[in-house]
């Protein structure tokens, strides 16, 4: 997007008012006029400013912003200078150009700078631009370490850094988190990566367009078995086991199904998979209701800590770098409150990157252990986050720094993989527009933009291939991938 009136005000050759027949590049380039509604807030401001002299602006989307300005802020700076210079010359462009011809553009800039605190004016304008529609927000979370960025953003001040006053509300389980998000009690919520896809398609709930701006964590889950099964490390011996997963539409469910199916066990026939809210996993394992579970931490480590179960395998050894939890909100929230959404989005991406630093993990563990957040012994959280842990079988202390990691980028290929598994296990029927849904829900482009703004390097592509337990996943052939499995429900 380029705004035509934003010529360099210190240049005698530039016209600032773009009369008919104007020969500047942007006027030549623009072919079609955009309707009023297509103006974004920057365009609208520029229009206000140039509107004073009746100068017309014709915002055009053919000329890309990137070629003219490095960032929206630069463009806004120019717009402000522009307006001030025009004001000085009483909105009379010919006299401005005559004056510059006489003394030179840099002199004019110097005079203006000595008279006006330009930087302060620019700062003042920028502050009012991003006015938050709402500062008091409610964000739901389920008390697990996957939610680390969402939770620790509160005690470590990432929300307040972006002007938000966020209450992070503990939620009993995913179904409740989903319902409270759907009914608007939560402005945004911690969810599982498959949930916004399922909600958008209306699988398991009413259909409501959801978007997922950021993945929270990658890796960080595990299969835990009851201590009495220490001799049954081979999944082929698991027939008749009862397993817990946190939710139907969860990576946990799909990874457990994938894992046992690769070992020839049919997850629907040979074992029983039950939905158990994560916080209730350990109690159920101890009571013998479950033989094992694939659940989020800290409940894997807690089972070891309580001497109830042992860690059979970390999910990073099933699929290195798999996504797990997500930060999601309704499409409506993002559209109705763009500035609040942007601020929340930034604080989450910022917090996620902070969580990714291994040297910060011990500090984070201390911050999120208290009752108000995870309500778990600090030593359990610390084992999960630092990756220096015991598994309950071997008498050694393991060192796996990437046991859990944090990376906000929502790969479209991850969404496609999740959709293939939903299809594979019969959660959705019929034809799926894999890439279409993935790109609608996982707003990778926006995430990339926010990452860039915060000084992080986003990936240059949004699709990649995965190798999961020795089997290649090609995002270009989702349907073939689904059909290639021996055990499936279609």
């Amino acid at each position, binding site marked *: 997007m380029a705004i035509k009136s934003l010529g360099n005000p210190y240049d005698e050759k530039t016209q600032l008012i773009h009369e008919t027949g104007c020969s500047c590049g942007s006027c030549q380039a623009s072919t079609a006029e955009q309707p009023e509604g297509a103006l974004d807030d920057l365009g609208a401001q520029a229009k206000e400013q140039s509107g004073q002299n009746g100068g017309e602006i014709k915002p055009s989307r053919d000329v890309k912003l990137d070629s003219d300005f490095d960032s929206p802020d630069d463009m806004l700076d120019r717009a402000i200078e522009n307006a001030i210079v025009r004001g000085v010359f009483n909105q009379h462009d010919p006299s401005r150009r005559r004056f510059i011809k006489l003394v030179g553009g840099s002199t004019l800039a110097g005079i203006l700078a000595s008279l006006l605190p330009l930087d302060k004016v620019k700062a003042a304008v920028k502050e009012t631009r991003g006015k938050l529609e709402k500062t008091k927000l409610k964000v739901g979370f389920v*008390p697990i370490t996957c939610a680390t960025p969402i939770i620790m953003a509160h005690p470590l001040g990432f929300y307040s850094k972006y002007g938000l006053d966020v*209450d*992070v*509300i*503990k*939620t*009993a389980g995913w*179904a*409740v988190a989903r*319902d*409270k998000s759907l*009914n*608007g*009690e939560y402005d945004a919520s911690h969810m599982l990566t498959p949930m916004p896809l399922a909600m958008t398609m209306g699988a398991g709930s*009413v259909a409501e367009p959801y978007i997922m701006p950021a993945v929270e964590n990658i890796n960080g889950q595990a299969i835990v078995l009851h201590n009495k099964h220490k001799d049954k490390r081979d999944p082929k011996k698991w027939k008749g086991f009862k397993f817990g997963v946190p939710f139907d539409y969860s990576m946990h469910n799909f990874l457990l199904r994938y894992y046992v199916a690769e070992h020839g066990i049919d997850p629907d026939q040979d074992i029983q998979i039950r939905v158990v809210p994560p*916080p*209730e996993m*350990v*109690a159920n394992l*101890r009571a013998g209701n479950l033989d094992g579970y694939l659940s989020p931490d800290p409940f894997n480590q*807690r089972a*070891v*800590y*309580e*001497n*109830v179960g042992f860690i059979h395998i970390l999910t990073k050894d099933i699929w290195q770098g798999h996504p797990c939890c997500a930060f999601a909100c309704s499409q409506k929230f993002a559209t109705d409150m763009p500035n609040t959404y942007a601020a929340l989005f930034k604080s989450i991406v910022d917090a996620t990157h902070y969580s990714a630093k291994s040297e910060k993990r011990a500090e984070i563990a201390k911050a999120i252990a*208290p*009752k*108000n*957040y995870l*309500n*778990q*012994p600090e*030593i359990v959280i610390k*084992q999960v986050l630092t990756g*220096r*842990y*015991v598994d*309950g079988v071997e*008498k*050694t*202390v393991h060192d796996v720094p990437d046991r859990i990691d944090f990376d906000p980028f929502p790969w479209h290929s991850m969404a496609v993989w999740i959709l293939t598994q939903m299809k594979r296990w019969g959660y959705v029927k019929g034809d799926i527009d894999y890439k279409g849904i993935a790109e609608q829900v996982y707003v990778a482009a926006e995430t990339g933009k926010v990452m860039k703004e915060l000084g992080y390097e986003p990936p240059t592509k949004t699709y990649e291939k995965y190798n999961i337990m020795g089997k290649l996943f090609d995002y270009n052939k989702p349907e073939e991938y689904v059909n290639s499995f021996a055990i499936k429900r279609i």
Partner: protein
Amino acid sequence: MTLNVRAAIVSLLLLFVILVIWEALNQAPAATTALSEYELLMGGADQQARVPPPSKIIGHAYDELSRPFYDAGPNDKGIGIQLAYSLYRVLTGYLAAAIVAIPLGFIIGMSPLMHKALNPFIQVLRPISPLAWMPLALFVIKDSEQSAIFVIFICSIWPMLINTAFGVATVRADWVNVAKTHELSQLMTAFSVILPAAAPTILTGMRISIGIAWLVIVAAEMLVGGTGIGYYVWNEWNNLDLNSVIFSILMIGIVGMLLDLALSGVSRLIQYEE
């Protein structure tokens, strides 16, 4: 010594013996040497899950009760605040139920036609577990707070409705006939004859209801979370902190008992001798 005093002494002795046995059976072994990192990560020397001894629970209870109204954020509030939230929900739902159930009970009790017409609905709706309404309530009402209140409403309405109808229907026919001979209107009969006569039965229904409402609120709050004594139990259960769980069980019992005592006090006021 009267019987009451002797009974009280026996009660106290029993309690004392139970507590001593409980305490003695659940002593954690003292750690003899400093723990290695491995042992520390494994949960220390105390590897056996055990119920906490009473001394720990009493210590914890003292700690919690000495600061009942602290507020350390949306997920960490004092026991007093949590109980207040639960009581607010219970009383709101309960009063709403009373406002609906008692007049409706009068209609059913006084009119055999309405009794027959409404009976099938009551019989179908009454046995439904109040928590089964929760998903539907969340979907329709779109507010977890009001959904919890609705669940209380739906569970406390039935005993009041049925008891009111029964009490009204079984008022002695002579009394109603006397009212008729005095040419009292239907409304006057209802208020000045039937209401006082049926009041003890109605109060019994209300007493049953408040008990059920208090039972259900704990489960409802465990489900929707956020605030309340049910959430408190759930939150401590997550942390497998039996100290707090036992403490909150005691608190739930005490508050439930107080609610029941209050209503039995009221019902004693309106007792009458025939």
